[in-house]
């Protein structure tokens, strides 16, 4: 009976969540109902080969700060942008945070923070371009948030315009018009239309070139109306071939001299034109994809994409495998860290409820939810490792994901041994916080970016970064339990056993954190010695880790010398969290040193607020604890 009740509870809790994520249907405004094969298309972006599904998510996150549009996956929106741009111009995807950006464009109406469509902003493009150009000439310290956002918005609109251009070659164009039915017939074109696509004409390039030759060879330069029509079309093709600005839709793999080389479809077409060759098979397939999308022919759409993907993967000769592409798509679809956040949140909620009623049962449920969250968390990290074939922590985003995971593991271990609710509380809270911070970094673009040369060492990257992150997790969890200790002292100070128990957890996790932070820092020193010939150079990042270690060692020695007691030690561990935050973010804000690959910006204010809040908490609780101990 009890088991049945538990199953029922889990179904009630998990059911809606599971269905929420997995029943999403890729519905389009065209009658294409499945984008399964489009998601699998391999695209090159910033040196990484990734499925178009990931690319779509990254672009949409950059544009709108969300990974879905209108409740549908990002690929649905991107498919419209690429294959039917007219259908995407009204999509409100361009996030503007500051109303002054709108005012500077001359748009008078606008909310404080809202999303706008291209049809709303497109007519201001030139103005925006001028503003962004002038803003980019200002120094970093001369620009305000508004100027920065103007530059960002311009980049978004520019990228959007490039994206809608990317498949333009496959759509009929007004400047490629043939009226004369005799010409159409001789070229094998449909007599029902007058406008043709770049691709259609390129498929007949040899015929067109022979026509041109004949016209040129005509005695006396006498040209008929149809001759002029052919020459106009050829001149337009000439003009198209001179368009050289690179497009972002880089999906054509074309190795050169044994080196990897990728180009956009337009570049491929231009190349064929210059060499008097017909278009490559892949371009023809993309043309079919485009046509099928517009006509709603699902069968042709799937068949063409499937052939295109097969050709690319075959040419890549194992550099990208179907398995990895599928793993990444599944990872995108499941969105494991979002689910982890949900479970951790629910775990805290049930734990708090357990203080009021159904104590045992809600406590157990919250533990189960924490473990469930950890499973998704683990799945997410493992997936990333598999996809990228590298250790779990290689960039700032992943440090938060990993530290969050570690704090949850530590929380579960603590709960397993102590069973005092502290493990669940601290584990789930720190898990959520870390994943939320990671989520903010995810908005900046691909979180699986390529590694800069200096980080290209799997051994040191996996040992040094993971170890120090484990250490930071220990210090953070110790500080979070420090908060719990303060509340316990203030509100249930009479229950000495409970408080003593909490302090033991603080002490143990702080020691654990110190050991691993020390080990991680030393390993960093070894890596520096291996790479740069010196163990320690007083670089800001090294100093940041040293500050964390020094503070922790000070706490232990001050306790040893009886300068501080349990209360002060616990308050000190909260400051330990501040040292970790400073080491993690603060150092990056300085913008100096050898570890420039980890730099970031825009978090100064958040960091400042966090530090002030924590220090205020420590000072005020120290004051109240002292006051309480007097009575």
């Amino acid at each position: 009976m009890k088991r049945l009740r538990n199953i029922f509870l889990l179904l009630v809790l998990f059911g809606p969540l599971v269905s929420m994520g997995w029943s999403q249907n890729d519905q389009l405004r065209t009658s294409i109902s499945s984008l399964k094969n489009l998601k699998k298309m391999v695209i090159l972006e910033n040196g990484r080969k990734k499925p178009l599904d990931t690319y779509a998510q990254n672009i949409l996150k950059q544009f709108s700060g969300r990974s879905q549009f209108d409740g549908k996956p990002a690929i649905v929106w991107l498919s419209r942008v690429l294959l039917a741009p007219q259908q995407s111009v009204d999509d409100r995807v361009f996030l503007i945070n500051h109303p002054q950006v709108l005012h500077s464009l001359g748009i008078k109406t606008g909310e404080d923070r809202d999303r706008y469509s291209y049809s709303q902003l497109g007519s201001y493009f030139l103005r925006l371009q001028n503003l962004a150009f002038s803003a980019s000439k200002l120094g970093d310290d001369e620009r305000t948030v508004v100027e920065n956002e103007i530059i960002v918005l311009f980049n978004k609109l520019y990228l959007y315009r490039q994206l809608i251009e990317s498949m333009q070659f496959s759509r009929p164009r007004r400047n490629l018009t043939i009226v004369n039915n005799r010409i159409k017939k001789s070229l094998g074109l449909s007599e029902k239309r007058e406008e043709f696509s770049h691709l259609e004409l390129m498929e007949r390039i040899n015929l067109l070139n022979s026509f041109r030759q004949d016209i040129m060879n005509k005695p006396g330069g006498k040209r008929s109306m149809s001759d002029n029509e052919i020459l106009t079309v050829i001149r337009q093709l000439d003009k198209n071939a001179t368009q050289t600005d690179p497009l972002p839709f880089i999906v054509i793999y074309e190795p050169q001299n044994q080196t990897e080389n990728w180009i956009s479809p337009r570049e491929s077409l231009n190349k064929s034109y210059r060499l008097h060759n017909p278009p490559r098979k892949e371009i023809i397939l993309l043309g079919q994809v485009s046509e099928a999308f517009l006509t709603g022919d699902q069968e042709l759409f799937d068949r063409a994409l499937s052939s295109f993907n097969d050709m690319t993967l075959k040419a890549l000769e194992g550099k990208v495998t179907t398995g990895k592409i599928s793993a990444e798509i599944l990872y995108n679809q499941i969105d494991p860290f979002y689910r982890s956040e949900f479970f951790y949140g629910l775990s805290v909620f049930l734990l708090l409820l357990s203080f009021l009623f159904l104590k045992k049962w809600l406590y157990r449920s919250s533990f189960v939810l924490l473990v469930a969250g950890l499973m998704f968390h683990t799945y997410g990290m493992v997936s990333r490792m598999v996809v990228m074939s590298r250790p779990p922590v290689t960039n700032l985003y992943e440090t938060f994901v990993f530290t969050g995971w570690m704090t949850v593991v530590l929380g579960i271990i603590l709960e397993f041994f102590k069973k005092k609710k502290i493990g669940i509380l601290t584990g789930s809270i720190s898990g959520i916080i870390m994943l939320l911070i990671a989520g903010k970094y995810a908005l900046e673009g691909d979180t699986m970016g390529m590694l800069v040369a200096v980080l290209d060492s799997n051994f040191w990257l996996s040992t040094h970064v993971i170890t120090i992150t484990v250490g930071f997790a220990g210090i953070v969890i110790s500080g979070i339990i420090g908060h719990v200790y303060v509340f316990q002292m203030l509100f249930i100070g009479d229950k000495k056993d409970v408080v003593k128990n909490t302090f033991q957890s603080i002490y143990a996790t702080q020691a654990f954190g110190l050991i691993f932070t020390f080990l991680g820092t030393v390993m960093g020193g070894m890596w520096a010695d291996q790479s740069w010939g010196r163990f320690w150079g007083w670089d800001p990042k090294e100093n940041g880790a040293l500050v964390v270690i020094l503070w922790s060692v000070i706490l232990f020695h001050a306790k040893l010398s009886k300068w501080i007691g349990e209360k002060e030690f616990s308050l000190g561990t909260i400051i330990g969290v501040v040292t970790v935050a400073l080491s993690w973010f603060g150092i990056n804000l300085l913008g100096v040193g050898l570890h420039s690959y980890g730099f970031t910006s825009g978090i100064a204010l958040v960091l400042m607020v966090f530090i002030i809040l924590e220090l205020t908490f420590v000072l005020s609780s120290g004051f109240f604890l002292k006051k309480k101990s007097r009575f």
Partner: protein
Amino acid sequence: MTLKKISPQPLIKFLASPKLTVICLFLLLMVVIWGTVYQVDHGLYASQQKFFYSWFVFLFGVLPIPGTVLIFWVLFLNVLSAMLFRIPLKWSNTGNILTHAGILIFFVGSFFTYYFSQESMISLREGEEKHFSISSRNWELAVWKAGQNKKIVYAVDADGLGPDDLIRIEPLDLDIRVLEYYKNCQAYVKSNGQDRAEIRNASGIHQLKPEPGHKEPSKNRSGLIFSVHSPVEIPGRILLFGGDRGPTLVEVGGSHHYFSLRKKRFLLPFALKLIDFKRIFYPGSSIIESYESRMELQVKELLREVIISMNKPLRYKNFTLYQSSYFIAKDGTEYSVLAVVENSGKFFPYIASIIIFMGLCVHFILMLMKKRKNQRHSFER
């Protein structure tokens, strides 16, 4: 038994005290934070010199507070005294003792590095060979006789030179009196009311104006003005500038000498020749995946090929050469820049780290075991 009982002196007690540890660590924490923030405006080198390689840091320019070197020495004595006189020699203290022994080794290693390590650079174009490295921030005055089959260069450290310093270069029988020396300066072709003929310089420079040191010391251009007094008094003054086009030729007592102010050079026990420099980008991006220098290492008769790439430096005895950077000249010639570090104490941190980590782990485990034991006792009671 502990040695504490036979050494009750107050000084030893003070030195071995954990309170002294806390004070030192706290001071170190402050210095590290200050020194890190200082790097934003003044650069790493200035911060190292002011905070981390100094005995004292002067607050507001006058009030001395301990610098890292002093704190390290006090901490060294503190840990040593604690190990000898405070920490009881018991099995249950194994972790504690190991950790502190490791810290002592760490200190020894840092003193070794502080006093004996040397950092310099080699910049090579493809096909070029060098048997010396150059300092990125220190300068030297180099003098050699012109028209000799075998060029023998005599060099004197220029850093620290000041007005009226006398330099004697015995083998060339030269006496030089320093008139002006600037660590960083600007050079001017026109002089203010000075007799142009009075100043000799290969680049036509007639005046130097001191400038504050650059944040990045490698960008400093030093300048030196001196007179020659022996074997004969040379009329006028000789001006040398760090950015001179070439050495200045001066006739002294019938023989010609070249004078040059250049970055300090360090002779290496080997020669290096750059065969090929390669950069590999990730496809379709400007992110560098790797860069490497294929070189020839020559030690006397021995000639072998070596590859220096990111995270894979060349180690030769106490020397470590790593791929620091590269640049491409306007004519397209590729230059590979290698950093050269000579450190005879490089093994200390490795040994120390292993011992400290072992110590911390043992201490942590013993602490947990003790807690468990106590809990069991209280439960049984």
